[in-house]
């Protein structure tokens, strides 16, 4: 009997050994929030005073891929965040941020699930900054969307083997009465292969991947805001756009230069000029407390908040 018992004790002693390796790692979660100026971004809302011609907009899709997440130490070293492989939102070093909930206009191409988090592990250290790419690395970008692991299995986020995924998909409606589309689909271009359904073997001429860097990031209190109002601030959304409607990454698309500039990218080269993407206006930091406040305001009855300010408040359309 004693032998059997001691065997059990031995077994128990070995259990902590499995966890030993990860003892020096710490869990890190980055929080994202989608906004339109000072309001939360939602499929079922209409937003006013957007862009150069103070357009009224709503959106039918709002999803983007983030990859290559790096944490910046006090010494300026870059440490990769090892993503939790959850079989759903995160695979290898790619995450899907999903800000459409499949309601209202988002019902046509979207789904219910939402994601505004990046979860991973990193060696214990004092991190002061964070850096990430908006896009999918070439090696993962040109595969079969049908058999790819989640979240790289979403047909609505895919062009073709040749072009790869839409890194950013924002489908705007700029005139509710006409259902006028103004779409932003950003992905790699200039990918050479014999046909659209064949993956390129050499890197694409224009990766169109921007790098967002926050050198001073408070991991306790900061939230990364993805802001449609600032992305579109200098763009005239009511102006008739030549086909296609909005910017679909085309090198000669007149709707693209300003969008690219606001992503920090050069339309001609598909990279940030001199590797400096700091002209981007899409992402900015927000305080977690403010965001929570924003979420609360958002849930309040529209009448209550209308009186306080007239500028930025929404109409509860459709």
């Amino acid at each position: 009997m004693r032998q059997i018992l001691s065997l059990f004790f031995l077994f128990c002693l070995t259990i902590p050994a499995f966890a030993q390796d990860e003892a020096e790692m710490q869990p890190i979660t980055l929080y994202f929030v989608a906004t339109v100026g000072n309001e939360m971004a939602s499929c079922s809302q209409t937003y006013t005073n957007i862009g150069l011609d103070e357009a009224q907009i709503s959106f039918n899709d709002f999803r983007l891929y983030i990859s290559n997440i790096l944490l910046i130490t006090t010494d300026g070293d870059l440490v990769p965040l090892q993503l939790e492989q959850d079989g759903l939102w995160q695979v290898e070093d790619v995450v899907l941020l999903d800000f459409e909930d499949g309601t209202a206009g988002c019902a046509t191409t979207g789904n219910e699930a939402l994601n505004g988090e990046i979860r991973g592990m990193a060696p214990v250290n004092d991190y002061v900054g964070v850096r990430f790419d908006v896009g999918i690395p070439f090696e993962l970008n040109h595969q079969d969307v049908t058999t790819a692991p989640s979240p790289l299995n979403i047909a609505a986020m895919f062009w073709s083997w040749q072009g790869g995924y839409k890194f950013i998909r924002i489908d705007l409606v700029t005139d509710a009465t006409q259902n006028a589309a103004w779409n932003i689909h950003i992905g790699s271009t200039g990918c050479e292969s014999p046909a659209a359904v064949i993956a390129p073997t050499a890197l694409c001429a224009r990766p169109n991947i921007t790098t967002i860097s926050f050198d001073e990031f408070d991991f306790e209190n900061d939230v990364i805001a993805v802001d449609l109002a600032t992305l579109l601030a200098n763009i005239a959304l009511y102006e008739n756009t030549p086909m296609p409607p909005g910017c679909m990454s085309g090198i000669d698309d007149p709707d693209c230069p300003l969008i690219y500039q606001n992503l920090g990218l050069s339309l001609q080269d598909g990279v940030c000029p001199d590797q400096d993407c700091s002209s981007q206006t899409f992402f900015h930091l927000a305080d977690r407390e403010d965001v929570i406040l924003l979420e609360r305001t958002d849930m309040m009855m529209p009448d209550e908040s209308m009186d306080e300010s007239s500028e930025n408040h929404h109409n509860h359309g459709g």
Partner: protein
Amino acid sequence: MLRYLVVLVLILAGLIRSPFLPFELTNVPAHQLFYAALGAAQLMLALYFLWQPKPRIAQVALLLSGSNIILVILSQLIAIPFTNIAVLTLPAILAFMADIIACATLLLITTPHTRLINIFACVVLGGVVWGLAHASESHFPDLAHYTTDQFEVFDQVAMLSATDYAWDLPPGFPVPYVPPDNPMTQAKVELGRYLFYDPRLSGNNTMSCSSCHIQSLAFTDGRIVPIGSTGEAHIRNSQSLTNVAYNATFTWGNPVLTQIEQQVVIPMFGEFPVEMGITGNEDVVLNRLMQDPLYQQLFAAAFPDEANPVTYHNIVQALSSFVRTMISGNSPYDRFVYQGDTTALSESALRGMNLFLSEKFECHHCHGGFNFTLSTRHANTTFPEQPFFNTGLYNIDGAGAYPRGNRGVFEITGNPDDMGHFRPPTLRNIALTAPYMHDGSIATLEEVILFYAAGGRNITNGDYIGDGRANPYKSGFVPGFQITDQEMQDLINFLISLTDEQFITDPKLSNPFESP
């Protein structure tokens, strides 16, 4: 005295768990093997203990019962390995109580200074068994597959891998989603094939499923709208059954119908309009099938556990299983993309493909993916989407109205935003499935492309006057585009390259009454 109590409860627990009782009465099926072993061990220990009440025997019995108590508690509190349903049946609770009594009594019998150690050992053993079961769960999918009349193990992965049906999928195609309560079997597919082609399934013996779903036309009927068994016209164009196993939703515009099983009953029993016309003839139709020795044999093979297998439930299950096998993936396009045949597509079709996938024509936004529709679901789908689009076919009142009774998802939801929203169908075999659109109102592929190039349809006479191009519910992906004659020809050649000759001549999908 205590010794006999121990023996009694151990025999009780052992009997409940052992295979001497019907397994429906014992425990969750996936645990059956484990509990049968446990029960047999408990029975043996009880008898041994009755014969020779040695402390060593008591010790082992104590460990077994004690660790099982911990196992059951963990399973109920956290998760049950090998299944995801928590069933506490009366026999399971009885056996559990017997374990508690046995454990308590045995603790009394053993010497006081070993009690704590014994309890500790039970906790550790129970936890280790639970943990090992959890860790190994994914490696033994077969063990999780076990259904009885009483229990169903809703473990899709396990169900898919454990079915006897071998999908013969084209290269590049994912495994279809199959509802867990109707796993694929060869016998059901075979039965479904006969039913699909049998006019006896209609109220008046005149039409079968195949009357409106003809194989040579990729399972459409070539009509604007089909005519039912009693002569009533349907309001919607007969849909192709190409790759319906991958549909996210069924029929032209209904977000509620997410399984073939739900759709199949509509043509069978529908009254508005009457299609197969079974309603009112339920017993007549069922009797026809029961009388036929062929069907007696086919139903018995497909549903071997049932005494009276000729039921409408089973007819629906078999038809759905057969229809799921209508998989088309051997067109010139597939040979080019998935089978490495670089000569399969002409230069023109290749140019058409690049146009199709371009941001200029926007075709792929609704007809994207391997099945050429975003309305696609398969086993690798993690975010099921149910897209429906308004393409600007009508605008009767200038406010977006479609003809009454045929307004797409709006007919189901009543939500104004759903006006004229229809499911994008697959474009595979599209050259065979004219006329087009939900109401068959466009005759040719060229006219369809011109319709999209115009950004909708402007109707200037008749009942439905109105400019569909200005329909406020129209999709943003249908703004219209310029197209040259050459581009038109290229695009049509690409669409023709989606025609799968093997599919429309496949003997496995053909009429078994003509060529079994």
